[in-house]
C-alpha cells in the first residue's frame, strides 16, 4: 500500500433513492475509491446529527449524507428535514473548525448511480487534500474508567447487578 493518506468516509444513504443509486453504480460496474463505507437508513430524514458527530469523533475523516431529490422523497418531504438539520449542523461544525468539505449533503435519485460515484470520487479527493481528521479519542467518558472503585461501606450496586 502506498503511504499516501487514505481518507475514511462514512456515507449515509436513504433506502429508496441514494442506496439504490449505490446499487446501480455497482450493477453498472462504475468505479470509485474504497474509502467510503455506506450505512443504509430508511430516509435521509432519519439522519441524526449525532451520527455525523459520532463518525467524526470515532475516526472518520468525512461524512457524506445522501437522499432523494427535494420534492421526490418517498416519505413525501422528510428530506427537507434532513436539509434543515444539515444546514444548521454545517454552521455549528464550521465554528468547531471542521472544514466544510468534510461533511456534505448530496441528493441522488435511484437513477443517479453515476452521479453518486462522481460525488464520492470528488469527496475522497477533497478530503485527501485536507489530510486526516484523526479526532483524538476521549479518554474516559461517562460510565468508563478503570472500574477500580475503593471498597464501599454502603455497597452501591455495580452496573451488572442492575442490568441483570
Amino acid at each position, binding site marked *: 500500500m502506498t503511504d499516501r493518506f487514505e481518507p475514511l468516509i462514512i456515507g449515509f444513504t436513504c433506502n429508496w433513492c441514494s442506496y439504490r443509486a449505490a446499487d446501480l453504480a455497482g450493477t453498472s460496474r462504475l468505479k470509485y475509491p474504497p474509502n467510503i463505507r455506506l450505512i443504509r437508513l430508511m430516509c435521509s430524514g432519519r439522519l441524526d446529527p449525532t451520527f455525523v458527530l459520532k463518525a467524526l469523533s470515532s475516526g472518520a475523516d468525512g461524512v457524506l449524507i445522501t437522499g432523494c431529490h427535494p420534492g421526490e422523497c418517498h416519505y413525501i418531504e422528510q428530506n427537507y428535514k434532513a436539509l434543515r438539520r444539515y444546514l444548521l449542523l454545517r*454552521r455549528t461544525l464550521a465554528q468547531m473548525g471542521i472544514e466544510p468539505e468534510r461533511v456534505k449533503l448530496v441528493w441522488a435519485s435511484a437513477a443517479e448511480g453515476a452521479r453518486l460515484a462522481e460525488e464520492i470520487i470528488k469527496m475522497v479527493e477533497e478530503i485527501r487534500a485536507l489530510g486526516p481528521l484523526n479526532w483524538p479519542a476521549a479518554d474516559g467518558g461517562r460510565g468508563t474508567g478503570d472500574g477500580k472503585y475503593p471498597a464501599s461501606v454502603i455497597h452501591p450496586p455495580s452496573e451488572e447487578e442492575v442490568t441483570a
Partner: protein
Amino acid sequence: MSANGKPKFAMYWAAGCGGCEIAVLNVHEKILDVDANFDVVFWPVAMDAKYKDVEAMPDGSITLCLFDGAIRNSENEEMAHLLRRKSQILVAFGSCATEGCIPALANLSTPEEIFEAVYHGPTTDNTHGVVPYPTVRVLEGELHIPEFYPVVKTLDQVVPVDYYMPGCPPESHQIAAVLDLVIQALHGQAALPPRGSAIGAGNSTVCDECPRTRHEKKIRQFVRIQHVQPDPTLCLLEQGILCSGPATRSGCTALCPKAGMPCIGCYGPAEGVLDYGARLMTAVASVIDSQDPEEIEHILDGIPDPAGTFYRFNLAGSLLRASKPAIMSPPPAATLRERALALTPEGGEEGK
C-alpha cells in the same frame, strides 16, 4: 470510619465559579444534618485544609465526595485522582464537573487565543506582557505552578465517577434530597441508584415541568429574548425564542421558562443522550417552517452563535469536546518552558 464514628464528607472546588459551593450552603438548616451525619474532613471553602492532609488519609476513607468544577489544569486533575483514590462515592457535582459547563466554552479557542485574551487583551493592564510559566527558574531556584491544559475535561474524563449531579448550580432542593438519600442509605434505610446514573434530577426534559401551553411547532424566525415581549403563557420556542427546554434534563422545575426566560440547558442532556447539542440542533432545525435552502439559511441567521448556543453547558461532555484547532493543539507549557529559561540570569534578562 473516623474517630467519632461518622462517615467522612469532602467537597472540592476545581475549575468553576463556586456557585455549586453556595448552592450547597443554600440548603439552609439541612446543612446541619450534614454536620450531624458526616465528619467533614476536607472542604477548602468551608474550612482550612491542606492537600497533604488528604494524601495522608487511607484510601477509600472518605465516604462521600462532592467534586464541583471542571478539569482545566494539572492541579484539577491531580486532585481528581487523589479524591477518587480516597473516596468511596465520588459525585461529579454540578454542570462543570459533569459536562464542562461555561469553562468548557473555552474549548472553542486554542490556548494561544485564550492566553492572548487573558494576558494581552484590551481589558488587561499588563505592560510587561507577563505570562505565567509552569516552571520558572529564578535565582532562588525553580518555581512551579499547575500546567494549563489545551482543553477543559469533565471529571469522568480523568477518573471514574459514581454519580452525576447536573445543574448550574444544582437546585438546592435537589441537593437536600440527595443528601437525605445518602444519609438514609448510610442507615440502610434506602438503596442508592446504580453507579454512573444521574442523581438529583428528573428523567424527562424541562418541558415536562414547564407550565407554558404548547402546539405543533413551526418556526419561521428566531428572535432574541431581549428584542421581543414574549407571550407569558405560550411556549417560548413557538415564539421563535430559542429555548433549550425540550432537550434539557428536568429537575429544575423549569425555573427560567416560568420566569419568562428561555431555558439555556444547564441541567444537560436527558437520560441516555449521547450528544446534547446534536439533540437540540436536530429538534430546532426539524421544525423550521421552510423548504427553500435560501430561506432556511436566512432563518438560521437568527441563531448568531450555534456552537455556543447548543453546547453552552455541554461542550466538554459532547462527542467532539472541543473545536478542531483547540483539541489538536499541544499544551502551551511546552512552548512556554523555553521562554521560561530565557528569563534566567544566563538568559540575561533577569540580570538587569
